[in-house]
């Protein structure tokens, strides 16, 4: 049995010129610098439940370091601590409760049926482009209350945002008419500028004509002055669009690939529809759409018997926790029958627990349920083209064949 290390210090090479390679001076929020890699399930859980020690606000929640001005410009709900975090969360949590998300199940089913009909009629194709990407984007747009004709644009934007999490962005800094220095934009991408502009346009429309949707909820909060600032509103919109579509797309794609690769598991679901909920959780564990979230130690502390200094970067690797043999029997086996699946696809718990968890679960189970109902089978026809990112487990495209 392989031993999973507790905490491993990664001397992450510094990126900026002028900083010595391997400079591990701790307690400084400079460029580069090492980080603690937290790989075990129990340790990720412990960190997640101690936000006062493991801060999301001090250095933001991604592995890379940001300059002070970028930290402020790019801050969203993910990168805040209590009490600001609590205020932001409570503003929108109502829209994402099981009771309110259930209202969207019928819409989700209609979209799923339409996409699967087209996929079958075409004899298969790129699963990402034809099914996995459009489903969650159209659902989050319905919830936000923005027009479905804008779906393609928003998918394009979120693809560029994913690219922005890699070292090789392809967009020029002035794409989409952007004039803001890119380090001040989320994911350092000019696509964020386009998304901000879009958020402002939709926000203005809802201020003029309020509707019963999530954008209206957000802008009305903004008008109260002390509730949501302009920066908070547009970064919130940004998080909802990115998290609300890219992540679920990833789960639906890895899930489809897993079922194609493990036809016995697909047959199990066809034979026993009661397995749907457990299958959904196994898809989530398998896919782990968000690979890591980073925290910064707010004080000296200890984890897994290791001393951590104030200011250290401490990174939770959900992909590792979701393969922890201490928690999951035979963790590298895709098994839709797992009982009490304690995966961390939605994080390790605590106040930052994924806002969209119930929505994601609903979309994933509806899609695989609709596939099951028509006895649809998938066959992978090409290598998956992966997103070059250490943040998201993204798949940009994968060809699937279809049969019944």
């Amino acid at each position, binding site marked *: 049995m392989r031993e999973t290390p507790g905490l491993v210090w990664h001397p992450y090479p510094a990126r900026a010129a002028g900083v010595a390679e391997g400079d591990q001076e701790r307690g400084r929020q400079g460029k580069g610098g090492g980080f603690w890699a937290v790989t075990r399930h129990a340790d990720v859980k412990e960190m997640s*439940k101690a936000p006062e020690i493991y801060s999301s606000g001090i250095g933001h929640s991604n592995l890379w370091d940001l300059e002070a001005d970028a930290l402020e410009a790019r801050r969203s709900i993910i990168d805040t601590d209590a009490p600001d975090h*609590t205020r932001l*969360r*409570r503003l929108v*949590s*109502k829209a994402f*409760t*099981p*009771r309110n998300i259930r209202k969207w199940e019928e819409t989700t089913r209609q979209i799923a049926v339409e996409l699967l009909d087209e996929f079958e009629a075409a004899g298969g194709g790129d699963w990402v482009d034809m099914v996995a990407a459009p489903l969650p984007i159209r659902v989050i747009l319905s919830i936000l209350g923005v027009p479905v004709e804008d779906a393609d644009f928003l998918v394009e934007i979120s693809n560029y945002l994913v690219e922005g999490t890699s070292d090789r962005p392809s967009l020029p800094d002035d794409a989409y008419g952007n004039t803001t220095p890119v380090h001040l934009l989320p994911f350092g991408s000019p696509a964020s500028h386009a998304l901000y502009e879009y958020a402002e346009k939709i926000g203005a429309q809802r201020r003029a004509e309020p509707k019963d949707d999530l954008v209206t909820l957000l802008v009305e909060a903004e008008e109260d002055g002390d509730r949501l600032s302009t920066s908070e509103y547009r970064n919130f919109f940004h998080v909802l669009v990115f998290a609300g579509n890219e992540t679920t797309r990833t789960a639906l794609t890895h899930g489809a690939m897993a079922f194609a690769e493990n036809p016995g598991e697909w047959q199990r679901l066809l034979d026993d529809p009661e397995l749907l909920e457990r299958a959904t959780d196994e898809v989530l564990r398998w896919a782990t759409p968000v690979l890591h979230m980073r925290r910064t130690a707010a004080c000296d502390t200890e984890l897994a018997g290791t001393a951590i200094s104030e200011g250290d970067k401490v990174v939770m690797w959900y992909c590792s926790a979701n393969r922890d043999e201490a928690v999951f029997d035979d963790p590298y086996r895709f098994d839709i029958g797992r009982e009490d699946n304690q995966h961390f696809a*939605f*994080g390790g*718990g*605590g*106040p930052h*627990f994924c806002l969209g*968890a*119930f929505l994601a679960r609903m979309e994933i189970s509806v899609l695989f349920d609709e596939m099951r109902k028509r006895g649809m089978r998938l066959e992978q026809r090409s290598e998956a083209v992966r997103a070059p990112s250490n943040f998201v487990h993204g798949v940009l495209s994968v060809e699937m064949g279809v049969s019944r």
Partner: protein
Amino acid sequence: MSDLVKLAVDREACIGVGQCELLEPEVFRLDDDDELAEVIGEGALPRDRAEVVVDKCPSGAITIVED
């Protein structure tokens, strides 16, 4: 068969996920105003089910009231 225990929600810690209402709708409900959880009805569960809902609350806002 385990004893009945009473449950409490810390509304400061609650972030309105609704996992409790999903699991035990006779005992938990997200209220209409703040959409935060409140204990309703008898406010009690057999200990083994109480422990499940305590564990499943993502923000750890639910506790068993030990007399």
